[in-house]
């Protein structure tokens, strides 16, 4: 069995960790690192019987998790102190949101940039406030800047000059040129306060919207980089009440996101679900292509299946922008390269 499937089975609880030998462990650890799932695995197997060296590594990783959460939440607090005084209401997204709410997928989840969602009308005020508080543009290229502003769902990335941390300010959850039409206004209106028991008090997407955003992120936005981690997020976030699921499906349908939502549900169940539920999933041919792309990594953690990966990369661009625009964009990028 390939290491990436061993990793999936370990996360899903289908594989007894005691059956892994030393060679299998080092492959799994390397692949888990490449998929940004090493600390998640460490948390999952915190009480399992594993070799001493693996237990020591898992303890290192688990100890680093809370440090990372503290640093991410501090960054959210810095954004609050900057944006609240100028009257900009913001919602936390992705890793920082999971940490703030202490959701089941938060333990060990890697957190990169701070992602926030604000009302599009608040963009100029938010931008001015962030720049005044020490954030700076990462890219200074005028074409990239104009591209972000005209076509993307977020401001060009900003980095804080003292803390060296990035913030992505979103005003919707998918590029403006994307064929799906997410309703950011409704998501902002339905945002909920993080519950006591979480870490600090921040606005978060409602549970159905959080699941939709996660699915949009996996299926519609990228080239499936980090796909396995995002599907693990989805698997744990999608544990909703029946009425919440219904709302998620209705809402996704209105935003032309029902297909990604359903595909995510099938893939996440197939990858991480319990055997009885898993047996009832019928994967389409396209689903199987997704699975092959998501698991395209060898036991040395190198990417494999280059043609399939390229196809998904092209698809991500094709979904993101109409053909004439794509041609113009690639031409400009190629000339500048």
């Amino acid at each position, binding site marked *: 069995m390939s290491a990436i499937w061993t990793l999936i089975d370990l996360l899903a609880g289908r594989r007894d960790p005691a059956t892994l030998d*030393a*060679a299998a*462990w*080092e492959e799994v*650890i*390397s692949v888990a*690192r*490449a998929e940004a799932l090493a600390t998640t695995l460490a948390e999952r197997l915190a009480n399992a019987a594993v*070799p*001493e*060296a*693996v237990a*020591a*590594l898992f303890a*290192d*990783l688990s*100890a*680093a998790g*809370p*440090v990372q959460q*503290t*640093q991410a939440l501090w960054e959210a607090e810095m954004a609050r102190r900057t944006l609240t005084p100028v009257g900009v209401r913001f919602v936390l997204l992705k890793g920082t949101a999971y940490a703030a709410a202490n959701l089941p997928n938060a333990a060990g989840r890697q957190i990169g940039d701070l992602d926030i969602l604000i009302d599009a009308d608040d963009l100029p005020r938010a931008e001015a406030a962030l720049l005044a508080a020490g954030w700076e543009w990462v890219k200074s290229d005028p074409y990239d800047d104009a591209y972000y502003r005209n076509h993307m769902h977020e401001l060009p990335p900003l980095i804080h000059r003292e803390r060296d941390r990035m913030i992505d300010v979103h005003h919707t959850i998918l590029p403006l040129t994307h064929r799906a039409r997410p309703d950011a206004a409704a998501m902002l209106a339905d945002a909920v306060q993080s519950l006591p028991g979480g870490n600090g008090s921040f606005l978060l997407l409602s549970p159905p919207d959080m699941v939709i955003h996660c699915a949009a992120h996996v299926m519609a936005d990228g080239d499936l980089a980090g796909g396995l981690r995002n599907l693990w997020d989805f698997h744990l976030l999608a544990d909703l009440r029946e009425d919440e699921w219904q709302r998620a499906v209705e809402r996704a349908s209105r935003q032309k996101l029902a297909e990604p939502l359903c595909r995510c549900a099938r893939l996440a169940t197939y990858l991480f679900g319990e055997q009885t539920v898993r047996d009832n999933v019928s994967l389409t041919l396209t689903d199987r292509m997704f699975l092959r792309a998501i698991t395209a990594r060898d036991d*040395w*953690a*190198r990417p494999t299946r280059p043609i399939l990966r390229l196809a998904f990369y092209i698809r991500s661009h094709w979904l993101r922008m109409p053909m004439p625009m794509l041609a113009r964009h690639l031409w400009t990028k190629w000339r500048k390269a």
Partner: protein
Amino acid sequence: MRHCIRLAVGPVTFRIGSDWARPIAELASLYANYPASADPANATVRLEAARPWRRFIRPAVTIGGDFTIPGALPLPMSMGLLAAEMAMNLQMALGWRRHLLLHASAVERGGRALIMSGVSGSGKSTLAALLGESNAWRLMGDEFTLLEPASGAAYAFPRPVSLKNEAIAEMAARVPANRFGPLLKATPKGDIRHLIPSAEALEVMHEPAMPALILFPRFGGDVAVTRLAPSELFVRLTEASTNYAMLGEAGFTALTRLVTTVPAFAMSYPDSATGMALVQQCWAEAMA
């Protein structure tokens, strides 16, 4: 990958894969005296061809592994050992969490450690190698010193000492030829030759030592020894640490304890003999 080897250096076990036989054979020879480890590796390194055809045509070694930095230039096959060393260092610098990592050499004497930090060319490797060859000291490492946050103890990372330029001849005059790796000429870091630590140093590589003295050597210029205040030492060591920020409070606590309990000096010296004498003098003072 086609060729691979597992190496244990201090608490780290590396799994190193390569597209070619040569770097693995060179590593096997350089690390022949290291204790074997049956543990699963906790870090993976890849020495790979940037493009499939580069395996055969003008082969060049690209550094890969669990942690990589984008845009690292490939090295010619003759410098495979340097590529492996850089890749192993990179896994430590970006991935290791168990200890506070200091970019510093260290030697041990009577269970106490002398830590020497400084930029490339400061002489920290050469001084550590020279001390390691005298009978009184054990070489702990020339690149990283590992501090355990809970106890404050220093742990060894005794990979072969990377001697550069003039230091090569200086050590060759003192150490038998069978303890050296091949000479790597005109690398991006100058001429490099690896010195294999003594059998005694490798045998006790898992034994910690309590830090007793920290030096910042500076090769070149007149003799000068300046005591460093804890505040300056703190700032210098945060700069010398690759994972201080990642460790959060544990890193802060460990470093604060180190700078408030261990004396530190900046030390300029014109040549190795003077440098060694100054080190001994500082050590004697620290022990007094």
